[in-house]
């Protein structure tokens, strides 16, 4: 047996599976293709998200302030109503007292 000859026979060049060239060329094409222009949302997504967050926070703050003002106005109105009723009650009692004195 001739080992040199056997090795030369065993270690012949070998064809790769078909499509190797196409795969490499496709990889090269994909690496060289200019990047697709990002959409408006992708380009400004972070800024838009931040702005939307700020708008929501401001709206919530404004709503809370408005709610507190409305509550305070309602409480002031109720307090004024109670004062008026008390004043009317006092005036009514004074008038009743005066009427009784006149009748006597």
């Amino acid at each position, binding site marked *: 047996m001739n080992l040199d000859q056997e*090795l030369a026979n*065993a270690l012949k*060049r070998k064809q790769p599976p078909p499509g190797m060239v196409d795969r490499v060329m496709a990889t090269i094409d994909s690496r060289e293709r200019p990047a697709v222009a990002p959409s408006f949302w992708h380009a400004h997504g972070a800024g838009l998200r931040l702005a939307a967050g700020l708008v929501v926070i401001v709206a919530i703050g404004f709503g809370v302030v408005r709610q507190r003002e409305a509550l305070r106005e309602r409480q002031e109105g109720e307090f004024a109503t109670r004062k008026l009723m008390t004043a009317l009650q006092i005036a009514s009692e004074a008038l009743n007292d005066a009427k009784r004195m006149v009748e006597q």
Partner: protein
Amino acid sequence: MAKSLDIEAPSGAGRATAPFELHDSAQGPAVPGSFSQIMLEHEAMVFGLAYHFLQNRTAAEDLTQEVFLGLYQNLHAIRSAAHLKHWLRQVTSRRCIDAGRKARLWRFLSLGDAPEPAIELRLADPAMARRLQTLVATLPPKLRMTVVLRYQEDLEPSEIAAVLEVPLNTVKSNLRRSLELLRKKLGRQLPEVYK
């Protein structure tokens, strides 16, 4: 991973006198169509080196693709057809040896992996070829690549020394050692065939 992709042509590689014909010019970009031609021309060499070294079709395919992608990026540095062939052999060898070191394939492949011969083996017998491929795969990485370059590419020891960037005497002793190992292993496995 290759140590470097910028590879000098060996002194005996014989540079072309004209600019490398697959370029638009000596310094210009490579022509994509020409690159396909280069691949078609050399894919069997690169894939063969990788396959005979790694003994794994998928790994050899991946390595071949990496080598050609590396070539595409360094095509401007290729000066001649001889330089191109040398570059491909050198980068493929480096990547194979690195992959072999990482995987330590030769430690896991044992003589028991080689199929037992079912019939008496003759010269150019496919079973013998397969057995020899398996035995070559049991060699340590540098010896294995030396053998693959010697017998697949039919390179002289001086050319192997240039590709692997090792002294000529190292290549000669590696070849002697590899053949001794292979003869010993074959003699143990097939005493009736290999005498």
